[in-house]
């Protein structure tokens, strides 16, 4: 168990492509850190640099109190769970879990105890003699987890471990991973492009964009106070409504109508962000939405449409029985504290 410090790490590929442009992160002992971002943002590269599978161009990575920049992956005392599990196809489940221990010269009887224990933790005891090909996707995923926990490493690294599972199993496994990590208290770094996974798993959520950190914080912080337009769009489902607007004496002028502006924001052009669930129907509300499609999700419904007279798309997440019909124009209000205002030039948050 130990903390992980990433200090101004850079990765430049031959040809001058900057994959990682100076990332500094501090992951506390036992913390579950999730790196999230769209594909190509460098999240997997960063993880692989921590694992030692990619070289570090500049900066330093320390696990515990050791700088691991020049250590082989095996010497870093980490375990990794791969997206396609990367199980050794010719070895049994037992062999897969024992291989790392065997290479470290752990005595045979001790290996057996450790593997049995890890298998019991994950409910794999009855599969130990099977080969990976004889297991289902979920079971293979657990074997990959087993291979990671059996060595009791200082840190777990997860590289999109759930993306090969079907939706239902993904939900279940997500909870299992979180539960297991909390029980073992092992520092973990988890890479995903799924913002839902990121929100539910993370102690610390790191949103990456184009090789740089966009925002770091607890999931709730990131959700409630996105630091930039990018984060606002990326985190949350359905995504945040964004539209151009302007602040003047009358308040916040939006394409849909004028609402009260939050205090302490400079006058001038802004990008307005409103989460769909913060839009509440009110017949005399200042915002107008011409409904095009209504999606019923059971507990709530999403009304998709446009602001009348403008090309601005808007989604409102509605609860309750009184749902609008297609083609209807809906009046909506939003509380001033639920408005997110961003600088249209830099995309950064204004308040």
């Amino acid at each position, binding site marked *: 168990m130990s903390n992980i410090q990433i200090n101004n790490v850079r990765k430049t590929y031959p040809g001058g492509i900057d994959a990682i442009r100076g990332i500094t992160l501090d992951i506390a002992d036992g913390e579950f850190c999730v790196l999230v971002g769209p594909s190509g943002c460098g999240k997997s590269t960063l993880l692989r640099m921590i694992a030692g599978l990619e070289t570090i161009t500049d900066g330093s990575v320390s696990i515990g109190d050791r700088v691991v920049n020049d250590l082989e992956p095996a010497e870093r005392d980490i375990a990794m769970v791969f997206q396609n599990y990367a199980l050794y196809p010719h070895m049994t489940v037992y062999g897969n879990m024992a291989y790392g221990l065997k290479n470290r010269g752990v005595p045979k009887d001790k290996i057996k105890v450790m593997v049995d224990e890890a298998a019991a933790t994950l409910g794999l005891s009855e599969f130990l003699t099977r080969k990976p090909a004889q297991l289902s996707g979920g079971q293979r995923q657990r074997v990959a987890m087993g*291979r990671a926990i059996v060595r009791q490493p200082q840190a777990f690294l997860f590289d999109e471990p759930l993306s090969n599972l079907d939706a239902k199993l993904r939900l279940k496994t997500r909870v299992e991973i979180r539960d297991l990590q909390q029980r073992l208290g092992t520092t973990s770094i988890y890479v995903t492009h799924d913002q839902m996974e990121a929100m539910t798993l993370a102690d610390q959520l790191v949103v990456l964009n184009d090789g740089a950190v966009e925002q770091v914080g607890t999931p709730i912080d990131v959700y409630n106070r996105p630091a930039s337009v990018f984060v606002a769009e990326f985190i949350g489902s359905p995504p945040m409504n964004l539209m151009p607007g302007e602040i003047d004496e009358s308040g916040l002028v939006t394409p849909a109508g004028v609402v009260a502006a939050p205090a302490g924001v400079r006058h001038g052009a802004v990008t307005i962000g409103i989460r769909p669930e913060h839009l509440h129907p009110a017949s005399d509300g200042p915002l107008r939405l011409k409904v095009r499609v209504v999606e019923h999700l059971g507990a709530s419904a999403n009304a998709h449409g446009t602001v009348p007279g403008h090309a601005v798309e808007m989604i409102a997440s509605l609860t309750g029985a009184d749902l609008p019909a297609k083609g209807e124009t809906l009046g909506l209000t939003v509380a001033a504290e639920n408005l997110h205002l961003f600088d249209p030039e830099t995309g950064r948050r204004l308040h």
Partner: protein
Amino acid sequence: MVERRPFLTFIQHAVLILGAAMFVFPIYLAFVASTHTAAEVSGGVPLLPGAEMIRNYSLVLGEGISAAGAPPLWIMLMNSTIMALSITIGKIVISLLSAFAVVYFKFPFRMLAFWTIFVTLMLPVEVRILPTFEVVAQLGMLNSYAGLSIPLIASATATFLFRQFFMTVPDQLTEAARIDGAGPMKFFRDILLPLSRTNLAALFVILFIYGWNQYLWPLLVTTDESYYTIVMGIQRMANAGEETPQWHLIMATAILALLPPVVVILAMQRLFVRGLVEVEK
């Protein structure tokens, strides 16, 4: 195809049986010839086996055909086996290692090394046989097992096949092994080699038959009877100078020469099938 048409089934079987018969007939003829006396064979081979089988086979196995200048058959069989096995094992070991180096290590001129190997694919043995002979003669390897097998060991085909196979092994498997603390040779032994098992079996069969059927090369580098291989031995018997070739004994030799490759195929086929049944990814 799932089709139920009796007439088609009949045609299919007829074609198959005819094809199989065409392939088997010469071998059958050789077998029949090997069970008759010289006199019976000389006028044309009868179509039914004769009574001389045991006598003919024990003659070729034990004494050889002294008149034809060939040693006893068991020596030639042994020579052929040694040569074929050395070539097969040598080729597999060298091509496995060179493919491993080319795929998994970064070193200067790596692609040049690979292409050099690859280009030799385009040169058949016959093209380079004279310079090779010269080298082997200068090294004093004429009339030795080393001379018979070493020049044939380098194999572009096998290297190429293993390279292609290694490239299909997912990178993440390599990475998982690195994290599990397996060094390059350990990874090679514990993971790559077991995964290549079915490929190994296939190549073993192909290369063994290649080695066994070598004719021109053994003919060139051996003058000492005790190093004759079976395939060239048969040729010696057939060109037995002034005398009439003893076809019944030659045919018995040919049938015996067929057996080791057949045994290898049968033995390896099991491994094949097992490799195919256990679907592994």
